[in-house]
C-alpha cells in the first residue's frame, strides 16, 4: 500500500483553475520529482500537500490514514490541519529561516514548542542533523551570516527535525547562485534512503533524472505524464512533455 495517496485534488483561485484533478501515489522511500513550466501548478500542489492552501476537493491519505477530504468538514478545522501538517515537511524556495534564532535554535524551535522529546534529546538530534547537512561548524551563526546554500541546508535540517513522513522541496535551488546549487542538491541526494520519502519540485533536470524514482510532468494543472525517469526523460509519450524537455535541453 502506498505511503502517500493523493486523489483527484482540485484547486482554483477565483476563476483560474490551478489544479484540475491531480492523483498519484508514492511508496515509502521513494523520491518523486515534479517538473513543469512556471504556472503549471507544481508549487500549488506542494502547498496543498502542506495545507498552506486548502484543496477545493479531493483526498490526501498518508499511511492509510485519511488526512484530508475536501467534502468532509471535520478534516478542515484549524487544529486538524495543524496536526495533518506534521505528516509533511516543506523546504521553501527562499528558505524562510527564523532570523532571530541561530542555526541550532532554528532546528530545535519547533520540536521544543511541540514537546516532541526532552530538551537534551532534541538538542542532540539537531546537532546530528546539522552534521548530516555539513553545518556542524555553524551552530551559533545567525541566518544573515550564512550563504544561501548554507541557509537552505539549515532549512532542510529544520524540516527533518520533526521527522515528517513526506519531505517536500519547493524549488530548493531556484533562489541560489549557480555555484551553490550543488551543495544543496548533494544534501538532498544524501537523504535518499529506504525510509525517507521525498517530493521535489525542481527545474534541475539532471538532478531529477538521477535521483528520482518517479517523475511527474505537470502542465496546465494536470499530470501530463508520470513514470520512471527513464520513461519520462527517455521516451516521453506526450507531445507536450517532449516539447518541454526539448526546451530545457536548449539551455545547456
Amino acid at each position, binding site marked *: 500500500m502506498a505511503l502517500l495517496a493523493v486523489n483527484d485534488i482540485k484547486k482554483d483561485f477565483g476563476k483560474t483553475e490551478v489544479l484540475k484533478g491531480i492523483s498519484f501515489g508514492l511508496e515509502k522511500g521513494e523520491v518523486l520529482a515534479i517538473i513543469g513550466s512556471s504556472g503549471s501548478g507544481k508549487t500549488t500542489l506542494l502547498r496543498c500537500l*502542506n*495545507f*498552506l492552501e486548502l484543496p477545493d476537493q479531493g483526498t490526501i491519505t498518508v499511511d492509510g490514514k485519511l488526512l484530508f477530504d475536501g467534502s468532509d468538514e471535520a478534516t478542515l478545522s*484549524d487544529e486538524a490541519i*495543524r*496536526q495533518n*501538517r*506534521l505528516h*509533511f*515537511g*516543506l523546504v*521553501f524556495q*527562499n528558505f*524562510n*529561516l*527564523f*532570523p*532571530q*534564532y541561530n542555526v541550532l535554535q532554528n532546528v530545535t*524551535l*519547533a520540536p521544543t*514548542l*511541540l514537546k516532541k522529546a526532552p530538551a537534551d534529546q532534541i538538542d542532540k538530534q539537531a546537532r546530528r542533523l546539522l552534521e548530516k547537512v555539513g553545518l556542524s561548524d555553524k551552530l551559533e551563526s*545567525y*541566518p*544573515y551570516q550564512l550563504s544561501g546554500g548554507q541557509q537552505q541546508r539549515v532549512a532542510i535540517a*529544520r*524540516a527533518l527535525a*520533526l521527522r515528517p513522513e513526506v519531505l517536500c522541496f519547493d524549488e530548493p535551488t531556484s533562489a541560489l547562485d549557480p555555484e551553490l546549487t550543488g551543495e544543496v542538491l548533494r544534501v538532498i541526494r544524501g537523504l535518499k534512503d529506504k525510509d525517507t520519502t521525498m517530493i521535489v519540485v525542481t527545474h534541475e533536470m539532471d538532478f531529477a533524472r538521477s535521483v528520482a524514482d518517479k517523475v511527474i510532468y505537470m502542465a496546465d494543472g494536470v499530470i501530463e505524464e508520470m513514470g520512471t525517469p527513464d520513461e519520462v526523460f527517455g521516451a516521453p509519450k506526450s507531445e507536450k512533455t517532449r516539447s518541454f524537455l526539448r526546451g530545457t535541453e536548449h539551455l545547456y
Partner: protein
Amino acid sequence: MTFLEVTAFLWEGFVISLLIFGVTLLCGVPLGLPIAFCSMSRFRAVKAVSKVIVWIVRGIPLMLQIFIIYYVPGLLFKFPMFSYMDRFFFLNYGLSDAGRIVAVLIAFSINYACYFSEIYRGGIESISKGQYEAGYVLGLTKSQIFRHVILKQVIQRIVPPMSNEIITLIKDTALANCIMVCEIIKQAKELAANKAMVWPLFYTGVFYLLFVGLLTILLGRWEKKLSYFRS
C-alpha cells in the same frame, strides 16, 4: 529666589511631567496592541471602528483632546468627575491638581496608544508571509508563531519609530498646563507671573534636554541589543 530654589521649584513640576510620561508609556504601550489587532481584524466592523478611532485621535490636537476628556463629563452628563476628584484630593491629601492629572493621563494614554498601534501595525504587516508559513509547516499554532517567530522581528523593526514617539512624549507633557496641571512649564509661568522672573521659563529647556539625552542613550542601547540579527 536663588538659583537652587528655582531649580527645586521647577523640579517639582518636572516630577509631574515625568509622571505623565511614565504612566502614558505604561498604559499606552500595551493599549496600542489591541487597537493594532483590531485595525488588522478580519471582521470589517471591528476594523472600521478601530480605524475611525485612530483617525479621530490622530486627527485632532492633543490639547483639544485634553479639554474634551476634562470637560465632557461635566458638560454632557452633569458630572464633572475630574473637578470632584480635584476637590477630594485637595481636602484629603492637600493635592491641588490630582483630578486634572488623571484627565491628562487618560487623554495622553489614549492618544499615544493610537500612535503606537499604527507603529505596531506597520511592524507586524512588514513581516513576510514566509515567516508565518515556515511556522505553519512546522506544525506551530498561530499564537506560538506570533510569540516565538514574529514578535521579536516586529520589536526590532519598531524600536526606531517607537524611540521617536517616546522622545516626543516627554515634550508633549507640557500640554498638560492647558488645564492648569502644575508640570514644569506651568511652574515656570507661575514664577514669571508672581515673581517677575522670566529666565526660569527658558531654564526648563535644560530639564527636557537632559532627560532626552538620557532617553537617547537608553533607547540606543535597546536598539543595539536587538541588532544581533537581521531580518
